[in-house]
């Protein structure tokens, strides 16, 4: 065969095979599940549920970017364009109201509406306008991690609830450093929200209001109490020189280093430190997140992932069948053990493998019930970035003026009078 003929033959074969692949609709419908990056746990669940479906559907995963804001950006852009290739989505809780308000989410069917077996924090974060709009999958919360040797040296009884003031004093006395997230990112909002909620306040008093009617309650005793804590940590250098740029990983590394004392962080730190420094684990304890004042309850941050089904999916019913399979308590327990992400199902915490692997599982469950979600508003992104603009770097916060300035700035942004 001469060269042009050979090339034509190859081209024809390629086209035939390509067209055959395009027209192959004999198999079960393929559901695309957009997942956030993890250690392969969601892919394993997808494979298990595909097998259990017995040919009714197949679940194929597609990876979203690493940070929550970028995940939101990608999904929102695709959904706004009516992209039908999205079926199931792993959604970060604070961005759920925005998607629900924009009618991007298919209604949750009756058989998935029950929340009897779900921790309270996850139920709150899956709800918008008093309605469950997503299905809780896994729930996350921050604990207070401490070095037992430092707590002992500082004379703190860690069996009792502790306050921010106590751990700041302990760090100052023992000349050690606190692991907190002072970087200009979502983690800063997480921290501010937890402190304001613990002090009995709330960032937004009417989260379901339209943008130009949203009322902020930052200029309050609760707002000032939160600002005082951050300001003191920043100005006294209680979190070290890396504080203004410290994220969750940086805090963990600081805590695991020679100067570590106390740290607020998500449970992923436990398997991470166990893996990198097994000897250190014996000196590490955990308890509920610190409260702002003695006598007030802590309001630990709540995070995690809920599952939403796209309103533009061509297989909405099948997608919810798949979601029902994904969120089974045994899948959540397995996911916790293999990937370190805590279940939203209460019964999953009784799983023996969970109890063996995570000695702090009970504390996590308590923390999730006590947790305070971030403001549930379609304008969460504006509120969160507005807080980061005005409360960063934490060392420059003035408790008397920052909360009021912040409220004024965010209100102007929501009214389209200021840029972010």
């Amino acid at each position, binding site marked *: 065969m001469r060269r042009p003929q050979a090339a034509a033959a190859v081209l024809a074969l390629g086209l035939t095979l390509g067209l055959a692949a395009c027209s192959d609709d004999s198999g079960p419908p393929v559901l695309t599940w957009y997942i956030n990056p993890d250690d392969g746990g969601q892919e394993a669940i997808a494979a298990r549920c595909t097998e259990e479906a017995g040919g009714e559907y197949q679940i194929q995963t597609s990876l979203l970017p690493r940070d929550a*804001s970028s995940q939101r*950006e990608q999904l*929102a*852009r695709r959904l*706004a364009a009516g992209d039908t290739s999205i079926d199931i989505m792993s959604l970060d809780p604070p961005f759920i109201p*925005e*998607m629900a*308000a*924009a009618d*991007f989410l298919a209604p949750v069917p009756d058989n998935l509406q029950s929340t009897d077996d779900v921790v309270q924090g996850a139920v709150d974060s899956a709800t918008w306008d008093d309605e469950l709009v997503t299905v809780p999958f896994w729930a996350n919360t921050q604990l207070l991690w401490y070095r037992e040797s430092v707590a002992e040296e500082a004379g703190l009884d860690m069996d009792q609830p502790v306050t921010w003031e106590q751990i700041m004093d302990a760090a100052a006395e023992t000349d050690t450093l606190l692991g907190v997230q002072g*970087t*200009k*990112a979502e983690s800063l909002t997480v921290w501010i929200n937890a402190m304001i909620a613990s002090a009995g306040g709330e960032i937004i008093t009417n989260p379901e209001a339209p943008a130009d009617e949203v009322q902020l309650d930052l200029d309050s005793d609760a707002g000032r109490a939160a600002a005082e804590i951050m300001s003191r940590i920043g100005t006294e250098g209680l979190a*070290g*020189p*890396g*504080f*203004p*740029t*410290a*994220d969750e990983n*940086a805090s963990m*590394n*600081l805590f695991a280093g020679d100067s570590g004392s106390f740290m607020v962080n998500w449970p992923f730190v436990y398997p991470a430190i166990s893996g990198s420094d097994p000897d250190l684990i014996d000196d590490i304890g955990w308890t509920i997140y610190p409260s702002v004042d003695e006598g007030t309850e802590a309001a630990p941050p709540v995070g995690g992932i809920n599952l939403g089904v796209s309103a533009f999916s061509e297989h909405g019913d099948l997608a919810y069948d798949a979601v029902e399979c994904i969120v089974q308590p045994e899948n959540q327990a397995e996911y916790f053990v293999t990937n370190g992400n805590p279940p939203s199902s209460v019964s999953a915490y009784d799983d023996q493998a969970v109890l063996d692997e995570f000695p702090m599982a009970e504390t996590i469950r308590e923390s999730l019930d006590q947790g305070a979600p971030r403001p549930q508003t*379609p304008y969460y*992104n*504006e509120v969160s*970035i507005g807080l980061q603009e005005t409360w*960063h*770097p934490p060392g420059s916060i003035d408790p008397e003026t920052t909360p009021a300035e912040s409220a004024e700035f965010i209100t102007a942004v929501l009214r*389209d*009078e*200021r*840029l*972010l």
Partner: protein
Amino acid sequence: MTTSASAAEKAAASRRKKRSDRSRSEGRLGWYLAGPAFVIMLLVTLYPILQALWDSLFSLRLTAPDETELIWFRNYQVVLGDPTFWQSLWVTVLITAITVAIELVLGFILAMVMHRAATKLRGIVRTAILVPYGIVTVVSAFAWFYAFDINSGGYINNWFDWLPGITEDLNWFAGQGTSLFVIIASEIWKTTPFISLLLLSGLAQVPGELEEAARVDGATGSQVLRRVILPNMKAAIMVAVLFRALEAFRIFDNVYIMTNGANNTEVLSLLAYNTSIGRLEIGLGSAISVLLFLCVLIIAFIAIKGFKVDLAGTRGER
């Protein structure tokens, strides 16, 4: 006299006509060669520009398409009346001015090194100088970030703690000045090879006999540089400054990776990105993009007018 003058005028007119014929045919050939590319460029660039202009007249949020409203120039009013915009513009201009100035000097030195390097070494020298430009900007931004970031074990503080002002505890990304220093330094490291490459092509065009003649006439090295080399490289310098200034003005990757705009280091492209993509405020973001586009046009205009380069001169017509 009259006859000879008129003959000279006729000859000159005939030369002008010949030149203009040649010029016209060259112009035609130019259009044939560049025309298709020009049309495609218009299609792919004009459409988004017009779309941005149109969108900037609306209050348009991607997650609330039903609330879209024509508000004419209110987005521009909000952007131009906001200190955040002016702060970003100032930072962008500062980065552009400093990087272009330093790169021009450094680039020229490197171009001279490449130009004068011994024949055997020329290849190696050119490759070595061009390596930073071959690295993807995001990758180089991460490399610089990790070198300076104290939370992930950056080594710069340990290496340079003998310099005044640098201590083990210096957090480079916690303040505006130090953050901008790292951003500007990484930008210079990354793009100086580009400017030196453009200047090298200009150096190659300087006729060797002119330099030689100047030296024979007793000109010193700096006189040759100022009177012979630089004036003959004017077009190349203009192109280098213009290209680099436009690129520097659109800086995004380094700032996004290193500070994400913290400590007042936000640049105009990042502001446009955060508004359009982050907040999904397409109307407001488009207004910022249109203003960014206008700034780019102004820079191009200033560079071309400021250098007073007549590109027709290089074709030997005048």
